[in-house]
């Protein structure tokens, strides 16, 4: 599982690759720390190459959302696969995030 963060057009883009399961969640939490200090910038969570997300992964997503929102930014989730879409529908995440 890898996480890359880059800045584009005044937005922070996090690119997730692999399986964000419970084991990977500890490292991913450290990797996304820059997003917690986005200072009002919008954040895009690019899930094009994210194969699976566990509840620990969702907890990271919601922490990012709460932090970015508190600083006046928005969070968009991009290109989730069908499995992850099902998880979003079940947990109610589809209503919180703008999914592109």
């Amino acid at each position: 599982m890898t996480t890359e963060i880059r800045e584009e057009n005044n937005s922070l883009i996090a690119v997730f690759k692999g399986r964000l399961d419970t084991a990977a969640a500890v490292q991913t939490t450290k990797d996304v720390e820059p997003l917690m200090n986005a200072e009002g910038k919008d954040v895009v969570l690019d899930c094009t190459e994210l194969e699976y997300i566990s509840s620990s992964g969702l907890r990271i997503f919601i922490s990012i959302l709460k932090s970015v929102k508190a600083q006046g930014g928005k969070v968009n989730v991009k290109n989730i696969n069908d499995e992850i879409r099902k998880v979003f529908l079940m947990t109610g995440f589809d209503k919180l995030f703008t999914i592109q």
Partner: protein
Amino acid sequence: MENAIFLGLSVQAWYLIAVTIGMFYTLTRTHVPAEVAFLGVVTLYLAGGLVNVHDVVSGLGSEAVVVSGAFFIMQASLNLTGVSYWLSQHWLGSPKSYRQAIVKLMTPVALLSAMMGGENVVSMFTDTVKQWARKLGISHAKLLIPLSYAATFGGMCTLLGQSSNLVIAGLYAEQTGTSLNLLAPLVPGVVCTVVGMLMMLLQQRFLPEREAPELSFEDISDYTVELLVPTDNPAVMMKVADTGLKNVRGGSLIEIVRFDKEVISPVDDDEFIFGGDRLIYSGQINELLKLKQTHGLVAADHHIYSINEIDSNRKLRTAYVNFGSDLIGTSMSHNKFEKRNDMTLVAVARQGKRVDEQPREVKLEAGDTLLLECPQKADRDLQTTLKRTLTFFDSQYVPQLGPRTIWTSVVLVAIFVLSSFNVLPLLTVTMLAAGALIMMRCCRMDSITKYIDWNYLLLLGSLVVFSIAITKTGIMTPVADWVLRVCKENPYIIIIVMSIMASLVSEVFSNIAAGAVFFPLVYQQAMILGCNPLPFVIALMTSVTISYCTPIGSTTIMQIYGPGGFKFTDFWRIGIWMHLALLLVNLITIFIVFPMY
């Protein structure tokens, strides 16, 4: 090859031993139902040439099977027309002491069991006795054991009283071509009933006190309840501390189980609630269940997106897991029971205590009490469909009493009169009675097949074939010879030894199986000694019923085990003395009543 002898036994005898060991291994280590295991054994016996097609057909269609089938119709009529209900409601009265309560309970139960079968009587009296115990201020356990034992005593008196009696009588008819009279075991049965009741009065202080398991859901303040968060719940994405879901009235949240089975325990205030979370609470069950109304949680076996998907008319019911239930050893999250029956497990109790696990992950055991959320409708259908798996505590069926109640009673009495005076054979009488009850619409003609427990009949039939195979292979001959030698060919000592062995075996296996296994042995011994086979057969019939120490050997104890919230060892202290005393008086009576030559 068939005639080859190895270690004193024929190849066929060794084949029978191997198949039988395989069957017992399958029965103890797997969830294969007994009737399927025995039918498999019959098939292997047939394939191995131990029995022929005629043996199998005559076994599966034997007198025991047909009489039991017709008896199911009679039992259904007794229940549907309200005879059972009326008897259970009107025969108990208001005794002045516990001693009197035991007598008032055991007398009619023993009498009815002789006529209607002990199992049927226990099932119709269990709920009534529990209510009666509450009214009298006596622990229900102190009356349920006398109920169960009285049913067994009464069942010893007639062929219809115990399934094992019918099986042994059927095997006797198969061997001799003569049917036994319905009242053949009456005298030893009555003596055992009287002595058994006296023993119960003497040992009354050893009867255990137990809490009614279904009341444990109301009384115990430390219970585990599992509730699901629907996707549209307002608490979704909020922190636990902000939702008011952590410390609730009557209990607290001890665990969150996420959609991917991740378990969060202990639950921090900062933890988020997700849709699909299963919240595990510990506390007072009635208060915790109010979370369904106050916080929009639901009891569900599958994911729920909106609380509107749940039928608000569903109701909570308590049931216990039967012995031999296919739920034993499984957990609700891994079997398909909930989905198949549109039910959801909310909580589990074991001997009236909390099971310290997520309810739907608990590996169920016989006697466990389950709190289930069930559909509002189809109460009786559920009970009928699940009768081998679960028994519901709160049967709400109250039959209408009327002329058919009287007709059914008349038919029941007529069976006894006609059969006892040898006017007609038992098989003919029971079939005529079943036919008459159907014609008089005492049971529904279009539901006849539902009343009959086909699995049970299959088991009975297979056991008869099993017994025929034992006889034909001669496997019991060396055992019979050995017993004859050891007992110096004294028929009295042989009957005593065989009765002790049969009653011990029936404590750990079923009495029907013990009867089927021992019949060829005792019959052969009687034949070798040139004795009257009747004392041997009647001694076997009554001995296999004498099993009071464990719930396994007696169906009537199995029936009260769950509703009574008993421990497996509860029956040992009182049962062992009962076992010894009844065995003794039974043998003395048989020796006096039945001529040996």
